[in-house]
């Protein structure tokens, strides 16, 4: 399952699950993540699952690379890869105020406005990971006809709530932040709620997500 284990510096174990970016590989990453999390191994300071990697950071005065590597290799996995997976429905407003890149996308993809959004909405997405900024979900896979690269020059500020697409992925900006994804709408939903300390991220790795369209009026009234 883990294809290769190496060290990332002197304070992390780098577990590589292969080059494939797909749900099967990612579910393996999540399985290891959940099992390791439950074991609460002494010295581990963080677990960072991503598409096809799991990084296990540790305090080097408590444990070391060799010891942890062996523990990971010998890990007895419980079959709990996706027990708590949820389906989450996210409203999006695609008013031109929010869909910052849609005009350029119609040209670049040589598609009509409606075709792009039909392709986007007509799909259930899978959450590969959350990160970069607090609670930002990396979702996939978008339909092949709407895949394109990042902006050549990233924006200094992407508005909070923005929905971005790039390559086969889609994400939601949980905070205003720099970013280079193509923005096609905005959600009024609080994706990361720090007041919910137990479960601050609405969308977690392994969850499934669908999007639906709301009007600008509904958007404005959403949090009232």
């Amino acid at each position, binding site marked *: 399952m883990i294809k290769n284990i190496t060290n990332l510096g002197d304070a992390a174990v*780098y577990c590589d699950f292969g080059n494939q970016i797909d749900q099967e590989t990612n579910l393996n990453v999540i399985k290891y993540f959940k099992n390791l999390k439950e074991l609460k191994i002494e010295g581990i300071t963080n677990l960072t699952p991503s598409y096809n990697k799991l990084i296990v950071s540790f305090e080097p005065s408590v444990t070391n690379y060799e010891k942890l590597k062996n523990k990971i290799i010998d890990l007895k996995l419980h079959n709990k890869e996706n027990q708590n997976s949820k389906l989450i429905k996210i409203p999006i407003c695609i008013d031109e105020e929010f869909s910052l890149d849609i005009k350029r996308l119609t040209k670049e993809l040589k598609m009509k406005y409606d075709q792009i959004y039909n392709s986007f909405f007509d799909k259930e997405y899978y959450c590969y990971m959350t990160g970069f*900024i607090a609670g930002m979900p990396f979702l996939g896979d978008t339909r092949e006809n709407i895949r394109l690269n990042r902006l050549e020059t990233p924006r200094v500020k992407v508005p909070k709530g923005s929905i971005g697409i790039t390559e086969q992925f889609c994400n939601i900006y949980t905070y205003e932040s720099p970013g280079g994804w193509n923005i096609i709408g905005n959600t009024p939903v609080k994706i990361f709620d720090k007041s919910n300390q137990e479960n601050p991220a609405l969308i977690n790795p392994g969850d499934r997500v669908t999007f639906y369209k709301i009007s600008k009026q509904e958007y404005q009234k959403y949090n009232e």
Partner: protein
Amino acid sequence: MSKNYFEILRPGINSTFQDLGRFNQHHIGIPMSGAMDKRNYLIGNKLVGNNNNISAIEFAYQGPLLKLQSTKVICAVTGNVNFKILRANSKIEEGECYKTFELNAGDQIDVISTNKSVYGYFFINGGFEIESFWKSFSINTMAQIGPNDGTKFSLNQKLFIKNKESKFHKKRIEYLNSKIEFIRVLRGTNFNYFSEEGTNNFFNKEFTVSKLTDRMGMRIEGPKIENIVETNIKSEGLIKGVIQVPGDGNPIIMLSDYGTVGGYPKIAVVISADHDRLTQLTPGSKIKFKLVELNEAENLYKLYEIETKNILNQIR
């Protein structure tokens, strides 16, 4: 809430509460944060008689001007810091780092600047009256979590302090913040993405710390490091010390408030023993990298730990 507080007469450039950091939240996108210079953090808390979990005020370049209201408190400053104590009776005293001092009602501490370094720390016995967030008192201004609503200090704010009566003990140590000549690194997981000339440049040429440096990361400038494979990778986890090289060839070193995932190839990772001194490098500083192997890095960290313990044991 206690009635004793510091009033912020000047917040300083980037003043926050920091402790040893926030653990086990990477999977939702929250980095470790915590004191940039861990050793100076530990020394200060030991001086004022606190345990390691009581948060300090961390400041960068220019620190805060604080006025104490209505009690007395035992304090210390660590780092390489110029500061003054302005007594209520208008007497001005030159501040001395690594030495406890007492502030009384109406006294002010003016943290003027960090000297040839970036970060300094201010400690009070008993600590501040603040709430932890995910078991840490560190402020993460990017995610806006931690005490003070996750924001840096602002003018006229009050910093309430815990009312802990304790007798003043004069404590001091001699400590010199040594400069770093070489930043020692291990090979990164994408080391072979770079041309031989690129990696030769990385290890043999000099780099300059750029102005684009903060608690999240440090950008450095120098010879171009040529990527011959792919300038983007699929986003994956990051930790403090990772050196990513984006398409423009200018490396970025991740510091305590790093983004938890990143998509640029990793050429190297700074060894843990060098983190404190790395974070103290001011923009314009010249640095060189030196390659070490894992067992060397592990031994160097053991040495760093022993050194830290020895310093802390001198404080009684």
